[in-house]
């Protein structure tokens, strides 16, 4: 294995070997005791004999992993020389269940994919079905979708930054600030959809209920106060010395590797690749709004943080325009029928720029009332595939920060 050959001969090798030997002895003794008592637990530490390399399983219960995710890390001293992500601790059979139920019945399940962004998940799924069945969406509904998607983006990015800082050891304050804003946005969601997190709001060809003028006013007030929050957040964080030292130059990702691995979202844009589906695909009505795409140039953790903050600012601009221009009209295409919905045989792929990256739904219909094949392209999981490349050579403590900067949600990774 080439990674093992590059390790320099360390002077403290004897002590490392000694440590490994001691560990292996105690592990054998513990395993012996376990077997006597009838327990069968896998050892947590698996020492390897060569070069004093230690294998540590971080997770599935680990205070810094975002959910139940395991990383098998090989460390030489503090340095990471190998990292193997282990998925599947939250595999909930989303796709299989969806293939067995009606099209509309999968809508609440999409909420639970990326549970921070239920509304964008709804939209991606609705878009795929609309493509499959050739349904048009009325203008007002498109505006509502944009408003809700951008609100979702704000709360997701704020929370992601909060969790990143939490992982860095800033316990509490940034996360509290982020959740304070998030709660305000969740209040809006609750007023409109009846639920804080699992909104289940979009329908094929439109939305479930209409927004009221009072709701729009409340949203306008919230959006008007948002730049102030971002300023406050940035004053706290952006030039903070500890944050800069912990983030700059850590976990750098090369643009060509990011493109080859299919990385999307803020992760990709932090490497400097200008790719945003809102600009590329023009899905919905995004070509009507003026907004810019923030790009980074080092692809490290700090750039990812910065891209997220700037995206919040751009989302505020989109929201201001959308809330000003929203027209009156129907919110559902009257021709769509929700009951006995059977699209013609065919296939469709609908994708949107979710806060975490490209979220796509691929559907094959055989003319029945449930999809023949239902497949989710989750941004979190595909962004995770480059985790090892980002972590190699860094300290164990940096692995935690790098994982936090990817912004994963396990519901989406394992489905």
């Amino acid at each position, binding site marked *: 294995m080439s990674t093992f050959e590059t390790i320099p001969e360390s002077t403290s090798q004897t002590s490392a070997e000694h440590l490994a030997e001691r560990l292996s002895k105690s592990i054998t003794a513990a395993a012996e005791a376990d077997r006597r008592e009838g327990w069968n637990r896998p050892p947590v530490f698996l020492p390897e004999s060569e070069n004093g390399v230690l294998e540590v399983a971080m997770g599935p219960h680990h205070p810094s992993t975002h959910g139940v995710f395991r990383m098998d890390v090989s460390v030489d001293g503090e340095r990471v020389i190998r990292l193997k992500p282990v998925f599947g601790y939250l595999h*909930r*059979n989303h796709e299989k*269940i969806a293939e067995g139920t009606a099209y509309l019945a999968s809508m609440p399940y999409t909420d639970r994919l990326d549970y921070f962004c239920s509304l964008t998940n709804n939209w991606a799924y609705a878009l795929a079905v609309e493509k499959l069945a050739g349904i048009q969406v009325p203008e007002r509904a498109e505006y509502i979708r944009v408003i809700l998607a951008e609100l979702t983006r704000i709360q997701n990015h704020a929370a992601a930054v909060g969790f990143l800082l939490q992982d860095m050891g800033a316990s509490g304050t940034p996360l509290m600030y982020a*959740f*304070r804003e998030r709660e305000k946005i969740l209040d809006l969601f609750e007023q409109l959809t009846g639920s804080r997190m699992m909104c289940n709001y979009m329908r094929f060809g439109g939305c479930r209920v209409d927004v009221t003028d009072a709701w729009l006013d409340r949203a306008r007030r919230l959006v008007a106060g948002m730049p102030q929050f971002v300023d406050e957040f940035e004053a706290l964080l952006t030039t903070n010395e500890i944050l800069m030292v912990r983030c700059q130059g850590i976990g750098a990702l090369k643009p060509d590797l990011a493109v080859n691995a299919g990385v999307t979202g803020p992760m990709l844009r932090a490497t400097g690749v200008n790719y945003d589906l809102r600009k590329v695909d023009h899905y919905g009505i995004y070509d009507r709004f003026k907004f810019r795409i923030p790009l980074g140039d080092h692809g490290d953790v700090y750039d990812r943080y910065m891209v997220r903050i700037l995206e919040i600012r751009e989302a505020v601009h989109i929201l201001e325009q959308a809330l000003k221009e929203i027209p009156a009209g129907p919110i559902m295409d009257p021709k769509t029928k929700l009951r006995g919905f059977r699209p013609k045989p065919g296939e469709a792929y609908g994708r949107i720029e979710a806060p975490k990256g490209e979220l796509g739904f691929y559907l094959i219909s055989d003319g029945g009332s449930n999809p023949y094949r239902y497949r989710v392209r989750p941004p979190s999981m595909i962004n995770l595939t480059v985790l090892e490349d980002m972590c190699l050579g860094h300290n164990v403590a940096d692995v935690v920060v790098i994982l936090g900067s990817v912004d994963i949600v396990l*519901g989406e990774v394992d489905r």
Partner: protein
Amino acid sequence: MAIDQELKIEMGKQGVFVTTIQELYNWGRRSSVWPMQFGLACCAIEMIATTMARYDLARFGAEVFRPSPRQADLMIVAGTVTKKMAPQVVRLYNQMAEPKYVIAMGACAISGGPFKQGYNVLKGIDRYMPVDVHIPGCPPRPEALIQAFMTLQKKIDSHHLTGEGRPRYLDPDAPGEFKVPEPGEHDLEPASNQGVWPVPVVIR
């Protein structure tokens, strides 16, 4: 043994505070329940929201989320327990020091919830370990978690230190650890732990 309430008030007026060891013990226990920092799925986000400024779980003395099971008193099973994760959850429970309590938060932890029909989802964590409070909901609102906390505090308050009604951890005969299930040929084995979950009798 309870004190005469009137007498207690009368003594209080004189500046004498009277209590029992039991009351004092339970008061201390219930006022500093430290939960374990342990989230499984969507419900964990609502659990985090509960600890944040708006809902402020600190009012109940429970804001100190411990990353290690050794320092925690309460396990909030927040989210879907899959069959791959269930052994780890039970193992974490076994590693917690007595007295320990469990709140099953959300439909998934109670019964498998919306994913119950899935082949990989455990149909309720109470098959493997004793659960003190169940919270229904998908996800339960933060208020519901607070309600569960208050229910747990009431439960702790009503514990007797001796005699028949004493809690599990004061009874040397009651089990404190439960068998960790293992992946068997078709399912986790055993399907449930003896004495924790009464297997329902199917009447055909």
